């Protein structure tokens, strides 16, 4: 590990790092180029307005490792388009040198080796340093939080989101939108939202009974900045009651509601807004489609699908900025707003290399205070991993393979199902697995690990249904997660086949026999959206399993055969 003082870094906006080739040597080669925190933060101020975007932090207060996906397939019009480009192809597309800090931060490949050289990423105390540096340069910059902030850790669960609210308040955001926050339950959401010293936005958050805009959330807020008027319109995750348990927030209805979005854009323009920013939790492909349908949006700050893109994507005259997840990146977006329109922009996706960026002392102290009461629980070592544990990928990740193994052995099941969520940091080979690490990939308010019987026919319906949520060629029918992870069950998926025909060759891996549609199988899983689900909490199941194993090794998963790409 390299210390902060002699750390070597490259800013994303800087041009490609020279040299570096040879797989496996990247970490060492990367270490031959020295940079500083100043270079990471370097930015030539542009125009008259600055936006700072953070999103999908998932309650990661401390620095973590986070491996980006090696498989993230696009379908329909998004086939082969960013963010559906990964690994070496992604690096070639953006001119990123192998082994460079940008390689490590933005793409998969040689992750374990590069992690040794470049260290952890994120940490809200480091994010605070980045934000303060931008504000020092542009004091009236707007800080906008794209949501999925009050979910995803041991301390967040036990404080019902309070730890994140306290730390984020210290960063002084100007507005926020929402997704997993709602899984705290509508009463707690109301309590926290009413306490916020900034705007809670969502033009698509409606009252379920009357189908009218919900009173608790404003659709937008107008800001006077840089001598002009900026409108920030919120767009919460559209499919909350489908992807997450509806019974936890029955008062609310969501949806994309692009007609209402268009009406809000007209309304803010009529109110004098010279620039329209959408703070979105739609997911990238949905944002792209929406940008093509709703006229008059200048900037979409895109969240939900956890994509990190070093340049904005342009749709018509709208720029879409994707700022990653888990506190790994901060986006700075400078705009030149003149004569009622956006005349130009300059952006930088700032990677938060936590060994290179100094923690902000005030925020660091606040984080320590939030964690102190839980210190013994958080730091208890449960086991060790010899394998890289990660989650991102369309079909499986090693963390989920381990979770599925835990479900099968601890719940005595033939088949395990684990949700295709995209949050959860990585662990590198040789690392201890602490209780905090397990909670980082399992924590939620509906984590009960059920055990039930499903027929082969129903299992196919489940796989087909989830596959259509990812591979429907129309982005408006995609929910932005990944495929449900399966343990003990192999299958073939044709990603370009129509709904109901994507899944075939379902196999019970323990016997090698084809799944019989008429037979019942014992299935264990977690994160059911159904009310009244019974079972032990998933983090306890995984902890027991890891304790028994001592040292974890996860073999490559070959149980999903992907065709039609």
């Amino acid at each position, binding site marked *: 590990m390299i210390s902060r003082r002699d750390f070597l870094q490259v800013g994303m906006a800087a041009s490609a790092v020279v040299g570096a080739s040879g797989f496996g040597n990247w970490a060492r080669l990367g270490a031959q180029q020295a940079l500083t925190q100043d270079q990471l933060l370097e930015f030539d101020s542009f125009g008259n307005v600055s936006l700072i975007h953070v999103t999908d932090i998932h309650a990661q207060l401390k620095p973590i490792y986070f491996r980006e996906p090696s498989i993230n397939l696009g379908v329909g019009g998004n086939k082969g388009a960013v963010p559906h480009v990964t690994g070496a192809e992604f690096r070639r597309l953006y001119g990123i040198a192998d082994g460079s800090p940008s390689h490590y931060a933005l793409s998969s490949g040689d992750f374990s080796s590069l992690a040794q050289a470049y260290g952890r990423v994120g940490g809200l105390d480091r994010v605070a340093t980045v934000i303060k540096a931008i504000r020092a340069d542009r004091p009236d910059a707007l800080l906008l939080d794209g949501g999925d902030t009050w979910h995803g850790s041991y301390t967040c669960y036990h404080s019902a989101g309070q730890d994140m609210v306290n730390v984020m308040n210290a960063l002084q955001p100007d507005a926020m939108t929402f997704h997993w926050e709602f899984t705290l339950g509508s009463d707690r959401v109301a309590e926290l939202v009413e306490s916020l010293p900034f705007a809670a936005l969502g033009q698509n958050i409606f009252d379920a009974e009357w189908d009218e805009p919900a009173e608790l959330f404003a659709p937008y807020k107008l800001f006077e900045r840089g001598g002009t008027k900026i409108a920030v319109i919120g767009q919460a995750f559209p499919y909350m009651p489908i992807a997450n348990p509806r019974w936890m927030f029955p008062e609310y209805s969501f949806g994309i509601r692009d007609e209402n979005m268009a009406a809000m854009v007209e309304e803010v323009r009529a109110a004098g807004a010279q620039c329209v920013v959408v703070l979105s939790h739609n997911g990238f492909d949905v944002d792209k489609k929406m940008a093509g349908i709703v006229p008059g949006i200048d900037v979409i700050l895109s969240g939900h699908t956890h994509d990190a893109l070093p340049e904005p*994507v*342009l749709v018509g005259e709208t720029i879409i900025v994707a700022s990653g997840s888990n506190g790994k990146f901060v986006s700075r977006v400078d705009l030149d707003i003149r004569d009622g329109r956006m005349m130009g922009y300059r952006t930088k996706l700032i990677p938060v290399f936590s060994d290179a960026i100094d923690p902000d002392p005030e925020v660091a102290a606040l984080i320590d205070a939030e964690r102190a009461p839980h210190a013994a629980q958080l730091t208890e070592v449960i086991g060790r991993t010899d394998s890289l544990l990660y989650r991102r990928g369309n079909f499986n990740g090693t963390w989920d393979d381990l979770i599925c193994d835990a479900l099968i052995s601890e719940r005595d099941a033939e088949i395990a199902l684990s949700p295709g969520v995209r949050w959860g940091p990585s662990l590198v080979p040789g690392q201890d697995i602490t209780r905090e690490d397990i909670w980082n990939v399992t924590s939620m308010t509906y984590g009960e690990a059920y055990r039930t019987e499903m027929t082969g026919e129903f299992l196919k319906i489940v796989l087909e249904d989830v596959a259509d949520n990812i591979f429907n060629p129309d982005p408006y029918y995609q*929910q932005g997660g990944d495929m449900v992870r399966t343990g003990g069950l192999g299958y073939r998926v044709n990603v370009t086949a129509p709904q109901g025909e994507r899944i075939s060759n379902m196999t019970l891996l323990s016997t090698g026999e084809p799944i019989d549609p008429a037979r019942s199988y014992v299935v264990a899983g977690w994160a059911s959206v159904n009310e009244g689900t019974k079972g032990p909490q998933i983090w306890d199941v995984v902890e027991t399993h890891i304790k028994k194993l001592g040292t974890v090794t996860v073999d490559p998963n070959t149980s999903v055969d992907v065709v039609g790409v």
Partner: protein
Amino acid sequence: MELTRRNMLTMGSAALAAYGLGALPAFASLTDDEIAKITGGAETAAGELTITAPEIAENGNTVPISISAPGAVMVAIFAEGNPVPNVATFNFGPLNPTRSASTRIRLATTQNVVAIAKMEDGSFQRASAEVKVTIGGCGG
């Protein structure tokens, strides 16, 4: 606007429209029969008639649907994938300030919801929206 080559490339791919129908419901011909009863086989064209429905139903048992049909005297709504496709018929008179209506319907499965409007001049308009009904489960 600062345009780079890569921005241009992604712009190009964004211009491609994607449209997926999913599995076609089995009762579509029933709907066609019912529509023919109203129109007498006359042509139905796209016009100012719009139908607003969620892309994915939050609850298939009660899906909010609204229609807006300036200049219509009648609008009928059909759910193609339901065993009985007829959902509702709205009649409008000269004293109606707007020719629009909202209701909630139950959808058995992923399907198209179709609206047929009879206009003041006797012509017909048609609009449809695909509503996905899913068992749900996993969000990012």
